[in-house]
């Protein structure tokens, strides 16, 4: 993670519906169903 406040877009995870969410400001806790893949 570079900036930590939503500016650099470095920490994204893919969303099930396409596009990406930023872990730092849209997470770090997210609805698993919204993610394209859930890390083991």
């Amino acid at each position, binding site marked *: *993670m*570079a*900036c930590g*406040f*939503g*500016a*650099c*877009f*470095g*920490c*994204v*995870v*893919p969303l099930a519906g*396409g*596009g*990406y969410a930023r872990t730092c*400001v849209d997470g770090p806790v997210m609805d698993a169903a919204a993610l394209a893949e859930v890390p083991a």
Partner: protein
Amino acid sequence: MSGADLAVDLCGIELAHPVLNGSGTFDAIAARRVFGDALLDDFPFSAFVSKTITLQPRDGNPPPRLYETPAGMINSIGLPNKGVHGYLEHDLPELARLPVALITNIMGSSAQELGELAAICDGRGEIAALELNVSCPNVKTGLDIGADPRELEAVVSHVRPRTTKPLIVKLTPNTADVPACAAAAEAGGADAVSLINTLRAMAWTDTTPARPWLGARTGGLSGPAVRAVAIAQVAAVAARVSVPVVGMGGIQSGRHARQFLDAGATAVAVGTETFRDPAAGARIAAELGSIAANSGLFAR
């Protein structure tokens, strides 16, 4: 800031001090959400350079997008943005409230795309200048538009008559002869050049089988690791062209900024350091003020 007058003129834009942000490394809207209106009272940069804006919206590259290196980082963010119409409708009203001039960075995969972007932005008074990102592969040749002096001159010549705003060409360092590209940009009608963009870089995982660490395979190296390369390129370009040069690459302090100014830059930009310290721009400008007060720098 300490006593010395650090004001500079960058192709007609009056800057209170010579420290800008590097495109894509500072999101003024996200920063305002986090730091509040204090950001407006003491904005860290003397002008704000937007992220790269393209004609169509982009999601950006698949993750992972970042890799840490000794004294630097590799990024392959992939220029996510809302597209120029989304930018003008949603972001520009917020960016216009910043207390500094706005420079909008645009990128296209052809002269036509860049010309169209420049024309679309031309009518918007909130935008003080355009910075052309020419580190985009030509769809036909696969080579970066900005890597070949003849193609770069043709692209800048095409964009030039489509806007009345100052044009700053952000040069790519990933080419054999950067000063020749700077001269080509100047011949095409650039009002200034900025450099360096990131150096093309790659990292591999330690897994078996190994794979490229970054989702997009390659990315761009930035941070203190590139500073000495950047200063050499800035010095070579400043010696070659008569338009102002915006120097950047690994600047972390006023002392570093001064090295770029002494190498011939009119202004400097700070990027990777703002990830470590979001207020770095203001700190570096203040440090530059102290240096200027005790040296001939900025003596008029």
